[in-house]
């Protein structure tokens, strides 16, 4: 991995965060919003892996990778709950457009 530029990796993760934020703000479809959240989460995980590679000690680097592993699990859990909400919303309203879900209760 010699020659990988720090700026390039951080710019990639920053760009992915920006794309995810853009998706969360503009899309109306619940599934597309979930996809955008996943893109932003992946940007965060990429940052953890990158900083683990440049950690001052081996122990702190390993903790970075351990956090990344746990984050991948959290992201999968979040998609499962998100899809459960999608199904409940679809059953209650007949649509998964978040602009039409104006009440907190289903």
């Amino acid at each position, binding site marked *: *991995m*010699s*020659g*990988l*530029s*720090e*700026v*390039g*990796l*951080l*710019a*990639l993760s*920053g*760009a*992915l*965060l*920006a*794309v995810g*934020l*853009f*998706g969360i*703000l*503009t*899309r109306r479809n619940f*599934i*597309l919003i979930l*996809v955008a959240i*996943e*893109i932003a989460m*992946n940007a965060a995980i*990429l940052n953890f*892996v*990158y900083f*683990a*590679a*440049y*950690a001052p000690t*081996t122990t702190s*680097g*390993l903790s970075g*990778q*351990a*956090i990344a*592993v746990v984050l*991948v*699990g*959290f*992201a*999968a*859990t*979040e*998609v*499962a*709950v998100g*899809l*459960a909400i*999608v*199904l*409940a919303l*679809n059953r209650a309203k007949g649509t998964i457009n978040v602009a039409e879900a104006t009440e907190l209760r289903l």
Partner: protein
Amino acid sequence: MSLTEAAFLLLAFVAILTAVASLLARELVHTILWIAVFFVDLAMVYFLLDAPFLGVLQLGVYAGAVTVLLLFGIMVTRKRIFSREAATGLGPVPVALALLTFVFVVTAVGELPTGEVSPRTYPPAALSAALFSGYGAWVLLLGIIMLTSVSGAIYLVREGRG
């Protein structure tokens, strides 16, 4: 430019391209196809960063499970799988906010300590040993949170609630 750097630039380009394409695709199934390419692409970046454990995890959890879950979500909420999305405008405010976030993150690069630090590599065996010794509490916590959220998800989708 070294081969690694060229490979990274290509992977980064594909990652941003597929991320944008997945959000702008008119058909939801195409979104999932683009996002699958995005997940596989990021797994390649992890392999490039000498993090093979995370690369395999990314392939298994994201490219495998999350993609199928999202496809399943489309399957049960749509009457026809290939139904088009209504066009939504981009809007100047979200684009400006996204660009502002990007600029903010990239300007933070200048704050990084500079110096010759050789990148560290961690063998998967060391990471696995750390996960089940020093970070065992985290893994347990992850398991408990997963169990709780799966119970919550089942409660949300069960018939005749309320």
